[in-house]
């Protein structure tokens, strides 16, 4: 009798609580992004916001150690300009970028270890400590090429859903609000759209500390490499420069165990023969 009463009690509780936890989702207009109040969610994703973010990170940096070519394409004085870099990633938290083109920058390097950045000018033979806000070229920041892991830099919160359109493609996405965990993160805050079923990042809108919209990133191309999907193209819109557009294209991705000495500031003057090719 007692057991029957308990089971009946929990059944009543379940029947009362379950409908109240259901949420309704309203569609979004294709070209706008609105953040919906929590009670309008119709479907709760199977993963938490942080888990979604980790899945998204894996699409940008699937392996612990690898190298790749990065081409930054942007408009300069009305002409299409390309800068080329070779990127070495080690243990997800260390990156070395060697400048290959244009020729007059060849041999310069950028090193990132955790939150720390150094820039090495080949001509001066001296690496200098720099800050994350210093820009690369076009609409890209140093962090766009060296920091491929959001989970370590940002706190995430699931705030809604969106449909992201770019060119002729459209993706249904979860929307995450990312807040910098430390002042060394590339951006102060990001609104990140992650495709629902694949957890592929599709769009990121980044904001300055002042709340000003800085730029929009579209993750437009992916490739299967070594059995893993990886982002191979980012298109930027720089809202601080009259919405100028630039693109970062990753290629020649190669899995490779890299030596620790590549990621030591004092060894940068000695690495030319090994990382500039």
């Amino acid at each position, binding site marked *: 009798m007692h057991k029957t009463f308990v089971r009946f009690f929990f059944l009543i509780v379940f029947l009362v609580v379950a409908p109240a936890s259901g949420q309704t989702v309203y569609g979004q207009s294709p070209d706008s992004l609105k953040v919906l109040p929590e009670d309008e969610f119709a479907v709760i994703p199977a993963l938490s916001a942080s888990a979604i973010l980790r899945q998204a990170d894996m699409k940008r940096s699937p392996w612990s150690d690898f190298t790749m070519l990065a081409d930054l394409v942007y408009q300069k004085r009305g002409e299409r300009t390309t800068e080329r870099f070779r990127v070495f990633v080690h243990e997800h938290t260390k990156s070395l970028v060697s400048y290959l083109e244009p020729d007059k920058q060849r041999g310069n390097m950028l090193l990132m270890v955790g939150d720390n950045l150094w820039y090495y000018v080949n001509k001066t033979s001296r690496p200098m*400590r720099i800050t994350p806000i210093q820009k690369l070229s076009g609409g890209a920041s140093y962090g766009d090429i060296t920091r491929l892991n959001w989970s370590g830099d940002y706190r995430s919160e699931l705030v809604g859903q969106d449909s992201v359109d770019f060119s002729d493609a459209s993706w249904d996405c979860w929307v995450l609000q990312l807040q910098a965990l430390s002042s060394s993160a590339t951006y102060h805050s990001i609104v990140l759209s992650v495709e629902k079923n694949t957890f592929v990042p599709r769009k990121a809108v980044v904001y300055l500390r002042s709340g000003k919209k800085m730029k929009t990133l579209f993750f437009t191309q992916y490739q299967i490499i070594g059995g893993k999907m990886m982002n191979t193209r980012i298109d930027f819109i720089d809202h601080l420069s009259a919405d100028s557009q630039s693109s970062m294209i990753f290629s020649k991705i190669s899995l490779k165990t890299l030596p620790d000495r590549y990621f030591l500031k004092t*060894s940068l003057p000695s690495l030319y023969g090994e990382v500039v090719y």
Partner: protein
Amino acid sequence: MLQRHNTPAGNNSVRIYARTFLLLLALLAFPFRDALRAEDEHEDSSPLSFTLRARGEAEWIDLRDSRLNPENVLGRYDNRYEGFLLGTIDYKGVDGYFSGEFRAGYEYLSGEMHEGTSFDDNEATLEINQLYYRTAARNIEVLLGRKKVRWGVGYAYSPTDLVTRQKNPEDPADRLSKVRGADLVGVSRLSESSQLDVLYFPELNWDFEDDFVTMNRFGMRWYRFVDPFDLSLVGSVNDDGDWTAGVNTSFTVGTSLELHAEYAYTSYNPRNDFLNRLDPDHPLYAYPAGPDDGVHDILIGGQYTFENNLNLVVEYMYRGGGYESDQLDSYIEAAGLWMNSGALSTSEMAGIVNGADQDALNAAAPLRSNYLFAGIFHPEVIRSVSLDLYSYLGLEDGSGFIVVMPTYKQSDSIDIYLRLKQFWGDSDTEFGLVPDDFSCVAGISWFLGS
């Protein structure tokens, strides 16, 4: 005639250490030879690469009646035309890596003496700024040749740069590529977050007159990264027993601020070192001396980058070898007496003037002790135009100079720039003694390719 400060016993022991070091280096390198293969074979890469850049400048200088050069009695030039080619070459081979930097230049100078007599001079030079071989295996690197070695973290000046010539506040970026590397042999041991370098970098006489090695010197640097700090301990010692020891650090705060600091103690005063090398009967022997003891050098500075990419650098420097006010007054009075006595030749007098000029600009042996450097850089103030602006101020007497340098990026290969420099200071101040008042440089830099 200059005499060397000689300690025969000290020379012998350092020579023994030098030869032992070289022998150990050879024994160390040999077993690794078979292991010194490229860590990876790079596709589509040539073992040989080179770059070539040309630069030309025309400079017009407005001289002033400095107490050390009234009416340009020393015949300092007021027009300079200079052009040079700077080439770099890199070759991967012989289980290692060769690199070189060469500068071939031509300079034409002209001016007018106080009585209206014109003069000119010209010089062609070929300099090897760097030429070295490097090889590495696992966590050991070996280096041989001439190389620029920078251990400091300062922007305008670094007291812990013990190996290569110190940085120059008047031209921190070495735009004329005149900084030459040190001739050295070195070995480095690297780990995940630290590096130990030991160098033998003697003074060599490449004229091959008298001894080829004129001074034996050793240097050491231990670097460690302790997040978020870069930390380096440095030291050097030479034949004469003169030594320097120092420390430097740098770190960032937030997204925009970088801070750095250096300290070095040198066991001798560079200004007195010059005096100690003179014969007692040399006219300059009465040159006023600075403090006899070792000197302390301190640098504290930082840079801040604004959201619009404007970069601001500020550095404070303390130079322990500088004169006190009364010593500087004695120096100026003595220099004036020498100028008027006729006891010195024109070239010797020019040495005093150039000494003041070089002291003020190259920071090798400063006249005073407290300085402030401030610089602003913006990569694009208006379309295709960047701006460098920096100033160096002597805090004791308020004299100094300022440089403004806008650069127009005509294309990816060609930069055209203007460089304006203005000194200020009363006639009895450090920068007031410099014979230059104002100079204007028009220049072009052309990257010829690779």
